[in-house]
């Protein structure tokens, strides 16, 4: 119970996010209208993705320092969950873009950058699957993971800020923080970010424990 408090917290926060996100009062803004509620679902996906990919990056570094099966499995599972969050982020973003910008895909720099970021991590999965020997697979995919993360940072955080973007906060568009993000939005937004991120960490936790058990089983058979 003491160890699992954060799982309960995650469930409570997500229930709060869904209920309050759908029912609470939101600012009435032109164009955005009710779609502003997507803020509680679309934006936390990217926060969660970056954090979980950071976990994957950290465990890859850890693997290179201390090669254990556990470090490798956590790095791989975290990368997979990061991809899941990225895909969900792109889908929710496309849905939102359809109603506010008029197109599912309007070649916005951030849309393109996140699609390329996903390609990088798909390539990571392909690389992993092309080795048979476990140790070699673990070491080389850890090297690529660190390399890819270093390439992802300029892609997601520097390049979109240099060009015009339809996203808030870029290319002269006002950010959410300046005036649209009023306190009622914040009240749900921050718990949503925390809740989704905790859920992601939980999935990584369960998946890597399962994978570890499976590896243990294969060794004894």
């Amino acid at each position, binding site marked *: 119970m003491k160890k699992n408090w954060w799982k309960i917290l995650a469930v409570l926060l997500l229930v709060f996010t869904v209920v309050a996100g759908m029912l609470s009062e939101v600012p009435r803004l032109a164009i955005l209208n009710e779609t502003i509620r997507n803020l509680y679902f679309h934006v936390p996906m990217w926060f969660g993705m970056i954090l979980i990919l950071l976990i994957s990056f950290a465990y890859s570094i850890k693997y*290179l320092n201390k090669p254990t099966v556990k470090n490798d499995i956590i790095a791989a599972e975290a990368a997979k969950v990061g991809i899941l969050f990225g895909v969900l982020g792109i889908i929710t973003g496309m849905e939102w873009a359809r109603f506010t910008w008029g197109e599912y895909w309007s070649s916005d720099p951030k849309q393109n*950058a996140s699609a*390329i*970021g996903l*390609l*990088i991590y798909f*390539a990571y999965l*392909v*690389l992993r699957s*092309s*080795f048979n020997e476990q*140790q*070699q697979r673990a*070491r*080389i995919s*850890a*090297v*690529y993971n*660190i*390399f*890819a993360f*270093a*390439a992802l*940072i*300029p*892609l997601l955080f*520097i*390049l979109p800020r*240099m060009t015009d973007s339809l996203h808030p906060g870029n290319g002269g568009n006002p950010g959410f923080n300046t005036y649209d993000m009023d306190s009622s939005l914040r009240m749900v937004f921050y718990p949503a970010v925390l809740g989704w991120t905790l859920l992601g960490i939980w999935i990584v936790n369960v998946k890597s424990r399962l994978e570890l058990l499976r590896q243990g089983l294969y060794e004894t058979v």
Partner: protein
Amino acid sequence: MLFKEILYLIQKDLVLEWRQKYAFNGMLLYVGSVVFVCYLSFGLRSNVLVVPVWNAVLWIILLFTSVNAIAKSFMQENRGRLLYFYSIVSPQGVILAKIVYNTLLMLVLALMCFLFYALVLGNPVQDVPMFLLSLLLGAIGFSTSLTMISGIASKAANSSTLMAVLSFPVIVPMLLMLIKMSKNALDGLDRSLSLDELLTLLAINMIVVTVSYILFPYLWRS
């Protein structure tokens, strides 16, 4: 010590290239045929090509050329020679030497490609020194990121497919910056406008070289 090692390794690569000229000549022929294929597929008239298309096609040719040229930088080394290097030089020396050597190779290939391309498809570049600078940065950028990727891919089974899959997403940010910078040079815009791209490219290159320098020893060990 490291510097001396790097110089020796570059010298070794140059001598090797000079002795087996077929690889380099093959790359030159590759560039030539791709440019000619582009020329023919644009309908034999150079004036139909608008400037953005001219620019994009040139960079795509350069991208494919560099992937092909750099892919062999680790694959051509046989097992015995790698083991020999392993016992006498440091991994940092190997990766830095390969990066410098690939930069030189890419620079020659990019210049040849640009000359032939401009000759065949017309030369709309208005600010040639700036365009050459973007080619230089492109050669450095492609060789830094692709050298490490080729090291990773050479360890896997189907390395040539993997090389393309691994390298394209990593190289896209660089390619976007390069295309923008060379577009500015093509239009003859004021040079200060390209400063942003130039600095970002240098910063990305720095990141990639540093990461390669740190990570290559781990790759080398296997």
